[in-house]
């Protein structure tokens, strides 16, 4: 499958899950996964999902502006670089964000997130 198509499909799946069933993100992380969210480091699926499900907003909607992807090396990994808007329910203005994923293939033929870095983009 075309890497760009894979990246776009992953991004769509990730943010749809985030926006409608945040706990479902657990399927996308493993024990070795690392998340840096606004400068705070978390490791391992359980801790990462705990962090994401305890963010200080109940509902949100991601709108993706750009998706760039590149192969990361012989292990079959893929780097995906996203920028977009994050609308929190009740807030008047959307927040702008950038996020980087390093995806690794699973034996089942899908991908999991090995590295995940998220930053809001302040004006």
């Amino acid at each position: 499958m075309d890497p760009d198509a894979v990246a776009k499909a992953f991004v769509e799946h990730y943010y749809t899950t985030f926006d409608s069933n945040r706990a479902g993100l657990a399927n996308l992380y493993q024990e070795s996964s690392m998340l840096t969210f606004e400068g705070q480091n978390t490791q391992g699926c359980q801790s990462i999902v705990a962090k994401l499900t305890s963010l200080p907003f109940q509902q949100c909607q991601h709108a993706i502006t750009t998706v760039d992807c590149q192969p990361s090396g012989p292990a079959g990994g893929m780097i995906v670089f996203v920028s977009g808007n994050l609308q929190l329910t009740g807030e008047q203005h959307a927040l702008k964000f950038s996020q980087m994923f390093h995806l690794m293939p699973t034996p089942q033929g899908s991908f999991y997130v090995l590295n995940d870095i998220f930053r809001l983009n302040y004006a």
Partner: protein
Amino acid sequence: MEEQVEMVGRAFVDHYYHLFDNDRSSLSSLYQPSSILTFEGQNIQGVEDISTKLNQLPFDQCQHEISTVDSQLSATTGGIMVFVSGSLRVSGEHHSLRFSQMFHLIPTLQGTLFVQNDIFRLNYG
């Protein structure tokens, strides 16, 4: 360990943007034939083509100002992921541009790091 990775990431970023702003053609020393750059959506591979792209950007002088640097070890590649956000001031322009950039750094046999993956995006307001 985490602190070490952060220090390495920060040192690399300082070095990279110092070269970019003062001696742009020397950036070629940080890339290898396998390196890939995606600059505002355009994909470029290899030292020469990447060098050409960076040297031909439509401004002579610029200054990067870094706001945030986040680094993580990449367990499967032995490399380091570095995620940067900051501002880019281009000489002659009134307002600086905001940008985000990601580097995937791989250690060389000589003990330095080279840029295997590089993705750059301007952040429009």
